[in-house]
């Protein structure tokens, strides 16, 4: 399945903060065919550093999508049955307007003049794309991690537009620990002299800072067990310590590699803006309680967490489930067994496929 990223431009979007971005470009991909009743659309919302390329092989660079093992003919999100779409988030750097985009008022990249964005703003922009495609109701909105936050926001903000909501490995609000890890990432970027208060476009980007931020991120995405299994205390060469500060351990080498690789595909200012949007997100904001926020939602929920995910631990999923149950909302919950830590939602395909394929089929059948 060769796919191409599409793009749509809207005149403007007014943000939760009141600021306006005009115009705003949005990158998205679609897979499968929208049926005549437009009742088979499934929106996949991506995680922090994801993009619109969720499935298939990219026409531009030949790479598979970030959830290609879950989306496609016969897969969990079966493109023979459903029309699946994925949209790059507002503030991103993969086709949708973000800090690296040109500010038409100045003719230069926004950089730190880009307004603060929220998860709610991301979702509102996605809704504009859905309206643009003339889809009234989504069969499902699904995503992991920051994607899960958007799923929750969708279900609460647009209760009539979401038949089923699949928040995976996520939370209704970040804990102090989650904010803390994001802050380390932000400080690593800002401590890099090349960051230059965000004005590095056309110059040397803050590669060292951004790669350190990514290294920290990768540690939080894995688990003690998965790191033990993947690296242990193994050395890259010779099988013994040479007592240097080179990347002697396999784990050091891996983190450096992933950090350096990340710099080529991600913008440091996007990192700052998006992590801040995640930290500020609180689904209960504006409501007396999380339960009262979720009371607005009428979707069928399928909440999934993973045993070894210590970044988005199961208690955070249970908090969502408990709030939904207290308002008599329809919710299925399962904690899947995995050693992969937070990465599990990208890696543990088999069991997620069973859950999602069957549950989605039922929702589709009942909606017909």
């Amino acid at each position, binding site marked *: 399945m060769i796919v191409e990223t599409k793009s749509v431009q809207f005149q403007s979007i007014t943000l939760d903060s009141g600021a306006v971005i005009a115009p705003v470009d949005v990158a998205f991909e679609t897979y499968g065919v929208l049926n005549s009743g437009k009742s088979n659309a499934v929106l996949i919302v991506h995680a922090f550093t994801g993009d619109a390329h969720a499935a298939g092989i990219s026409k531009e660079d030949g790479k598979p999508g970030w959830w290609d093992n879950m989306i496609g003919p016969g897969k969990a999100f079966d493109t023979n049955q459903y029309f699946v779409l994925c949209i790059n988030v507002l503030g991103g750097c993969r086709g949708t307007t973000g800090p690296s985009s040109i500010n038409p008022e100045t003719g230069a990249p926004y950089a730190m003049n880009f307004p603060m964005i929220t998860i709610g703003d991301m979702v509102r922009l996605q809704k504009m794309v859905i309206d643009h495609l003339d889809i009234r109701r989504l069969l499902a909105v699904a995503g992991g991690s920051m994607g899960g936050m958007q799923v929750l926001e969708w279900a609460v903000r647009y209760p009539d537009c979401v038949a089923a909501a699949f928040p995976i490995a996520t939370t209704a609000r970040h804990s102090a620990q989650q904010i803390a890890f994001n802050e380390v990432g932000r400080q690593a970027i800002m401590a890099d002299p090349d960051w230059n208060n965000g004005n590095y476009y056309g110059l040397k980007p803050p590669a060292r800072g951004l790669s350190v931020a990514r290294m920290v991120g990768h540690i939080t995405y894995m688990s003690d067990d998965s790191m033990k299994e993947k690296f242990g205390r193994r050395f890259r060469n010779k099988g013994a310590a040479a007592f240097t500060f080179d990347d002697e351990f396999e784990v050091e080498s891996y983190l450096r590699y992933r950090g350096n690789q990340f710099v080529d595909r991600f913008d440091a200012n996007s990192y700052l803006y998006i992590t801040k949007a995640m930290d500020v997100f609180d689904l209960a904001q504006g409501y007396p309680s999380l339960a009262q926020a979720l009371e607005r939602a009428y979707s069928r929920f399928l909440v999934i967490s993973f045993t070894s995910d210590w970044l988005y631990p199961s208690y955070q999923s249970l908090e969502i489930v*408990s709030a939904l149950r*207290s308002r*008599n909302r*329809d919710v*299925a919950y*399962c904690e899947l067994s995995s050693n992969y830590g937070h990465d599990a939602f990208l890696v543990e395909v088999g069991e997620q496929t*069973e859950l999602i394929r*069957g549950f989605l089929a*039922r929702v589709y059948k009942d909606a017909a």
Partner: protein
Amino acid sequence: MATGSAPLPARRLIKEVLGRGDYAIIGEIVEPCSKVLDLGCGEGELIEWLMDHKRVTGAGVEISRERVQLAIARGVSVYQGDIDQGLADYPDQAFDYVILSQTLQQTLKPLKVLREMLRVGRHVIVAFPNFGHWRVRWAHLVSGRAPRTGLFPYEWYDSPNVHFLTIEDFEALCGEQEWVVERRYFLSGNHRVKSLPNLTAEVAVYLLRSMHP
């Protein structure tokens, strides 16, 4: 009741599909388009049947991760959790029916569970194996050991059953607690028994409600 769910065909079908007499009774009791919670719902086969044939809104609670996964894959909204604590989140009278099928004897605090069920459900359907059945009494009498029968096949040390009750025990509890028994069914295999149920019934199914909802 809708014509599509006339008692007899429904009962025959549910027996074919599920192969369990207590499920057949439950399938008969539940009104169409109601809201149903099944505790210890296993792979969700009863709720799926009720969704398909009675158009109910179903939910379940199940402790085993494997079974929860199978139930969700059927499209049933199952919560992975413990029945003994699993109901606290629900508001009062959240469901039309709360079902506990052959699991009461496995809960740690059966009275608390039943009270919680009557709080969150307008009606409670509870099915349990009858420890007063003559085979159980006989097995105990002749062997002098913890009875093992077809209905209670476990060794005492690996039995999931932690409370043993008879139909007489349950009737007494209903009286003490002032629960209203709306209907009662006694089964031997897949057949109804009418006389001496505490001796002849293997399984009892009760439809209860609270006196003061």
